[in-house]
């Protein structure tokens, strides 16, 4: 019989296939660690046939919206988002990085105009999905440390 370490959730979101060790960063991106509005279960280094090891995050009573899904893709490119209603999976989608990222990440270049008080959102073109590399639409600099620059 399968050993269940964490109970299934009734309603909410399960983020599966998170790169092992990244679960806490995912919580950070979603702002959940700062603003605990829901019960959250974090499983780290779970054995997985596909990935060897993976992390899983279960968020009760909260369904992620697409903008939040984009954020997760930046840090956990293979993650899947499962929307759970009444214990069953109602929607399942693999996160995929869009070609353009708007407003989620700030430019790592402190001298970039998008970091000043101007009425614009930061915009990036995704130049590489694995490893993730973004190019700022404004200053054209490429950035690899995406996790450290999430808004």
């Amino acid at each position, binding site marked *: 019989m399968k050993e269940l370490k964490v109970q299934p959730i009734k309603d909410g979101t399960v983020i599966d296939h998170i790169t092992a060790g990244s679960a806490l960063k995912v919580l950070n991106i979603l702002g959940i660690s700062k603003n605990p509005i829901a019960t959250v279960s974090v499983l780290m280094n779970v054995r997985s046939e596909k990935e060897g090891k993976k992390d899983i995050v279960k968020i009760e009573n909260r369904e992620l919206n697409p903008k939040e899904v984009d954020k997760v893709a930046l840090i956990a490119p293979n993650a899947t988002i499962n929307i759970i209603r009444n214990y069953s999976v109602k929607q399942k989608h693999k996160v995929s990085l869009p070609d353009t990222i708007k407003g989620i990440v700030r*430019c790592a*270049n402190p*001298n*970039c*105009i*998008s970091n*000043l*008080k*101007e*009425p*614009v959102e930061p915009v990036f073109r995704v130049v590489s999905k694995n490893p993730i590399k973004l190019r*700022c*639409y*404004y*200053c*054209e*600099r*490429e950035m690899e440390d995406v996790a450290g620059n999430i808004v």
Partner: protein
Amino acid sequence: MKQGFDGRDIISIKDLSKADINHIMNVAEEMLPIARGEKKSSLLNGKILATLFFEPSTRTRLSFESAMNRLGGNVVGFATSKATSAEKGETLADTIKMADAYSDVIVLRHPNEGAARLASGFSSKPVINAGDGAGQHPTQTLLDLFTIKTEKKRIKGNNIVLVGDLKYGRTAHSLTYALAMFNATLTFVAPETLQMPKEILSYLKESGVEFRQSSSLENVVPDADVLYVTRIQKERFPDPEEYAKVAGIYRVDPEMLSNAKKDMIIMHPLPRVDEIVPEVDKTGHALYFKQAFNGVPVRMALLSLVLGAKK
């Protein structure tokens, strides 16, 4: 897809195709007699150029203003951000909206990277980038290419040696991208700490462009067709000791040039400090002042193209 020039922004050299660059150079050539003052023109009569220089500049601003005046247009603008609303905390976006209302084309120099791209989003009139921090300075690259082409008849096949601060120098970066389009052979001379960034070298490899790297200028001068010298910029070094190690490492003097090809040309985006000694100015190799003049016909070409006065 071929894109026309009427109303177009000129922000980064990468926005231009090889055909675009060739077209700009052809129009610049037509402009030469007007730029020299030998012929009068009213091509841009009634048009207003706004020069918004938030950072000081000598050549770029003067040559843009000269270009506009030579074509019969008028210029409004400022040469320093002092005494403008930016000092009072106005956003660049608001300043641009104002300039958009007062002029037909905007030339912008700004200390922040990406400023010109941002400006283009807030202006219905074409925006030309005249340098954004350590970012892009496409009109410098265009006048550099125009200089090589007019002196050497073609760009392809020339061995172009870039020397100096290749790590931080925006001029060297943009010029390298552009020269790669034209299949020039490139030689990069810099101390180890100031060599061309890896991403540019990998771009060259991917594009199949021939290049070599060296730390010795003497060794590469004999087979150079163009020697492009840049200043090692003191302001880029956080540690004065680090600057002292590389400052004055390359100095072009008449002795070094004794082994150079007779028709080798020396270029420099200026201002120079001591990387080219004044005695070199008298030699036939020195081309940097003519290069600075070429800013006028190239900027005339750009202004008339983006204003739709030239097709």
